[in-house]
């Protein structure tokens, strides 16, 4: 009996492994496109830092602080890590110049802002070389299907199928603080379909759209800032 059971083991593992591979393939269904537009030469010294700020002056949406933090964290680690000043720390230290209603919108405004001695002093204190403005959001569209769940005395379960599409669109504008000019723009567009089949238990197959947009944008920004 034991020998038979042992013989059936590879076959018993085949099905779950196939399902797992299928799930992994389905989860990877995200497309990311990066576009870079360079306007000037770049480069950063080891004693210099950058700050990544989210645009929040629009009424319709605001760039999520979590996304800004994600890009910053990725730029601050790995090969060629860059010193990134946390957004809130920078905004608080330079209050009230980088609030949603007072933040400079164009690189020309940066020149006026840098004319303020207290601002220049704080920028030098942080060692800021580049200000990166992130603008964008992730939208969920094309929701389809439905899942029904029921609970009874004998137990419960769900049945159905749901799917939706996530579309992330972000733009990063890089301002050189030393020359008060815009040196480039990088845009990241990512989209992916997520699925939620439910047979007794809902199985979420989530497309990591925003996470992919974050990592792709961070890698590109790191190369851009370093002059690559």
């Amino acid at each position, binding site marked *: 009996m034991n020998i038979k059971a042992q013989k059936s083991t590879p076959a018993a593992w085949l099905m779950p492994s196939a399902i797992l591979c299928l799930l992994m393939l389905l989860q990877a269904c995200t497309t990311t496109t990066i576009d870079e537009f360079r306007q000037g030469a770049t480069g950063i010294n080891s004693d210099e830092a950058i700050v990544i700020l989210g645009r929040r002056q629009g009424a319709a949406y*605001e760039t999520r602080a979590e996304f800004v933090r994600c890009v910053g964290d990725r730029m601050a680690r790995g090969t060629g890590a860059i010193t990134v000043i946390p957004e809130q720390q920078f905004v*608080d230290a*330079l*209050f*009230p110049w980088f*609030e949603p209603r*007072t933040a400079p919108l164009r690189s020309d405004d940066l020149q006026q802002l840098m004319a303020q001695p*207290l601002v220049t002093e704080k920028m030098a204190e942080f060692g800021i070389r580049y200000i990166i403005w992130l603008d964008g959001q992730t939208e969920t569209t094309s929701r389809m299907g439905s899942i029904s769940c029921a609970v009874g005395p004998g137990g419960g379960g769900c049945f159905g199928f749901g799917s939706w599409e996530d579309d992330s669109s972000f733009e990063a504008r890089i301002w050189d603080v030393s020359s008060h000019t815009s040196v480039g723009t990088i845009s990241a567009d990512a989209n992916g379909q997520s699925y939620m089949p439910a047979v007794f238990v809902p199985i979420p197959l989530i497309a990591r759209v925003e996470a992919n947009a974050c990592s792709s944008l961070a890698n590109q920004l790191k190369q851009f800032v370093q002059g690559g």
Partner: protein
Amino acid sequence: MRMLVNLSKQEKRESGVNINSVTIKKAEPYRFCQRLLMSLVIMLTLASCAASTVTVRGSYPRPNIPAMPLSVGVYYGEGLTDFVYTELSDAGKEEYFVETGATHKDLFNTVLPAMFQRVVVLNSPADAAAQGVDAVFIPRINEFQLGMPQKTRLDAYEVWVRYNMRLTGADGSYIADWVMTAYGKTTTASFSTAERGINDASVAALRDLASNFSLGFTSVPDVRDWLQQRLQ
């Protein structure tokens, strides 16, 4: 209980205690728990019907602006310290009370010393002359609006505030009187409460007020004229 059970039959008879009374006493803890549970259910039901009070709390950074060589008195009077906004439900019942008096005082106590060389908090505008200030600043809330996600269908809590700002001479004479608006919003977060959302949106609105007030003070026409005369 144990004492009663250990009594002899004679003692029980003498003390007027019988086996029934022991049974009743054994049931008391159960009844007590039952009553406690019922009271808790009633209290929770009543609490869910009652309006919730949000006392706004936040911290505000000191503005990085050069201080003007002026001595200003500030009076936190009615319409600011005692301001409570009442949010009504769709059925017209009181849903939230938003108290912002204390946090407004914290905000102005942080912002004004960065704007002026000397700031004195006055108990009454009449104390201004005795304190030797150049002007008296009196902020007041005119209107407060709250946007709740379930009503606006947006994934955000929003706060709008309209202020009336007055600047008078130490003798109470007119210098300037102007209106300022502030707006703040915070996106709804998973596992967060409505109270937290209201607080964060209010703090964002107050930061907006602080930034516009500190940068736009000298641009108010009447203030600008007064400053030109004063700082000549």
